[in-house]
């Protein structure tokens, strides 16, 4: 079935055609609330990541300053507003810097997987035949793996468990990429297989357009409309995978970059001795970021479907709308 009537118009201003802004404009009621909440959380996350060097009072690996060594496990207050960890890191600074690492990993992971996934999906769906069958089997095989386990294996293969800032980020991003490619592949392939039977693709065939032209001019632009949605949902999954890797000790070394998963791991032993601040802040950061991204993704999903979308009613006049 086609919902092409809701598609992008020609004369509409650019702002109305951008994914999130157009969604915001047509939202109403609870759906609008969800979307706005998600956007605010995501915006805070992005701002924290971008402005970390300006806002954070200390560097992520800093344990001394002019006044000497930082206290360890100091309670929140004074110079260290969110306290310090057992190693003497400032929790506030590390949480802010952690946002930067997280954002970099999300961007790298999604960019790496989106190109390959979309390309393979298009080719596999349109050309079909044995190539399609092989690619689908491979994608299914990757699906069958627990994704975290695969990410661990990948991070060991890529960086031998050791990591610098970029090494760590790339290791995390690539290991996530391996898990994500099948997702993009699947979505684009399914869409391509559907579009292949549409009359407009047949009409391009009748005209005599080459396979590549049909694939990229006619199918591609129609197949990628769901991408912003998967992008947002995958972003939150990428973040969780990164945190999981860090928590298990396969992440980035604390002196190379701040990473929420690693900090949570370190905070494990603190929890029993009543030191709550080392665990709560990175934990809450993970939860809120994932929540924000998921809210945006889910709202986009609902708003993109005309049957799920709520609409503003101008007035309620007498007479009941028959149910």
């Amino acid at each position, binding site marked *: 079935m086609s919902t092409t009537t*809701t598609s992008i118009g*020609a004369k509409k201003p650019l702002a109305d055609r951008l994914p999130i802004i157009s969604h915001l404009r047509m939202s109403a009621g609870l759906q609008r609330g969800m979307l706005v909440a998600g956007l605010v959380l995501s915006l805070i996350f992005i701002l924290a990541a971008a402005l970390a060097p300006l806002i954070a009072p200390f560097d992520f690996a800093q344990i001394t300053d002019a006044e000497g060594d930082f206290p360890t496990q100091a309670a929140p207050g004074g110079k260290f507003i969110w306290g310090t960890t057992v190693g003497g890191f400032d929790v506030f600074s590390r949480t802010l810097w952690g946002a930067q690492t997280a954002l970099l990993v999300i961007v790298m992971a999604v960019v790496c997987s989106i190109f390959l996934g979309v390309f393979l999906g298009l080719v596999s769906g349109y050309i079909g035949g044995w190539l399609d069958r092989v690619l689908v089997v491979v994608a299914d095989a990757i699906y069958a793996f627990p994704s975290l386990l695969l990410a661990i294996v990948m991070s060991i293969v890529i960086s031998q468990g050791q990591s610098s800032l970029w090494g760590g980020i790339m290791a995390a991003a690539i290991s996530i990429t391996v898990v994500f490619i099948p997702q993009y592949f699947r979505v684009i392939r399914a869409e391509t297989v559907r579009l292949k039977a549409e009359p407009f693709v047949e009409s391009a065939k009748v*005209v005599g357009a080459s396979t590549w032209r049909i694939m990229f001019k006619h199918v591609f632009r129609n197949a990628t409309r769901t991408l912003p949605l998967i992008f947002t949902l995958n972003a939150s999954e990428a973040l969780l995978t990164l945190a999981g890797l860090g928590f298990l000790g396969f992440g980035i070394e604390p002196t190379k970059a701040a990473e929420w998963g690693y900090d949570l791991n370190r905070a494990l032993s603190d929890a029993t001795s009543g030191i709550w601040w080392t665990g709560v802040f990175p934990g809450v950061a993970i939860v809120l970021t994932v929540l924000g991204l998921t809210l945006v993704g889910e709202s986009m999903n609902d708003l993109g479907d005309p049957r799920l979308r709520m609409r503003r009613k101008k007035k309620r006049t007498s007479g009941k709308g028959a149910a």
Partner: protein
Amino acid sequence: MSQHGTPKIATADGRVLSIEDLQVTFTTDAGEVDAVRGVSFEVAAGEVVAVVGESGSGKSVTARTVLGLLAETATARGAVVLRGNNMLALTGRQLRAVRGEDVAMVFQEPSTALNPVYTVGWQIAEGLRAHGKVSKKQARARAIEVLGRVGIPEPEKRVDYYPHQFSGGQKQRVIIAAALALNPAVIVADEPTTALDVTVQAEILELLREVRDEFNTGIVLITHNMGVVADLADRVVVMYQGKVVETAQSLELFSAPREDYTKALLEAVPHLGRNSASAGMSERSGQDKEVLVEATNLEITYPGRMGTPAFKAVDNVSLKICAGEVYGLVGESGSGKTTIGRAIAGLNRTTGGSLKVLGYEMLNFKERTFKPLRQEIGFVFQDPAASFNPQLSIGECVAEPLLVHRKVTPAQARARVDELLEAVQLPKAFADRFPHELSGGQRQRASLARSLALDPKLLIADEPTSALDVSVQAKVLELFKELQTELGFAALFISHDLAVVDMLSTWVGVLYRGKLVEEGIGSQVMSNPSHQYTQRLIASLPVPDPVEQAIRREAFLKTG
């Protein structure tokens, strides 16, 4: 009738349904849209009221309010009084009590209106058991009774069949049986025959007529087909843009329409035997010219799924299309007419016999060797909404053949697009619009422009007007005819509508289950068919004239 009582009539004058000043508003992204604006009409017991109008006239929405079936985004005002109950004011529970008992619905697509995992007997019984305390046995007995009434042979046995074991026409009979099970005062039939072939349509219309006479049921018939209206309706309500334009007795409406809109609507309906393209011709013209398409004993089979035998869509068909000739191919659904058209365009593979297109043998089809010939073939698809890439502007879509086959600069392409749009009577400015911003008729014109972009020798038109409203269809057909005379291309015109085919093509072929049963000059095939199937096909076609249709119906029932 059995324990379900005598027909109940609400008011003394026999009115069972009256709609008063109904207004329905939909809340959409673009604000509020008024779909129905102050519609009023009445239906008496034993009367068939046809609500006709083009798509978007609000006829279906009006009918759905009678059952209280409206989308969540709709708000209805006014009154729909069904045997004393205002359907707009009832609660969910009250509505459920009324549905089935007082009003039932017959849907357009019989294959989706039945649940495939239950037997038809179960589905009929479900309605009965939802309404009254009937035992399983009684419900079954009643189901068998109504199935027998609607002409299902061996109802005792067939009651335990699943929907897929019935044909399309029989499924529609089952749905009518389910609607009749509780003996409702009103049946709302929303395009009940649109998804069916003409020969089946004639039978279903006959059944609805019997239902009216035997059960004294009021029928609201929603349709866009004026032939069906002429055949069945007692009274006609013509709707346009959410308003009632005219209400009249059927005979009166067809013989002396009062409103301009009604006149134009009736004028646009193709009438079999009028405006024949081949009127006065006695032999096939233009046979000395170049042969563009030649099929000899053509066979096309679709491979069966695991365990099922292959399906032969086209069986031993031989035909010939010469330059400048319009060949009309008619047949019901599944007759293989579209398959032939697609095979000529290289969209389907042939599996046997020979098909020569512009001298190219399609049996050894290779995309690479066939590609140069593609510029000589234009193709117009059935659904204009789906045959344009929604992401490209009309100008880009029309220019696509030029960009693929000729080395042209954007300016040259643009000039040619302007020229083409002008030829199909669309303003140049439409080149910058997107497909969804055009109406169905405009899109089909643009589609015609695209297929003519390279001045093809052969145009294949696969049901080009069946997705359009009649008034739009008339204009598109007129345009097609003009362009054909002017440019002189040969055309294969595929349609299920005999009247449309007769208007355009001089030579007509009739397909039945993959076989070409008859070929001949259009006007001769239509007026004097020789094959039994063609005779039946033509006899079953309802004409938009109640008097003539009554005579034709008698004749059809005698042959059937």
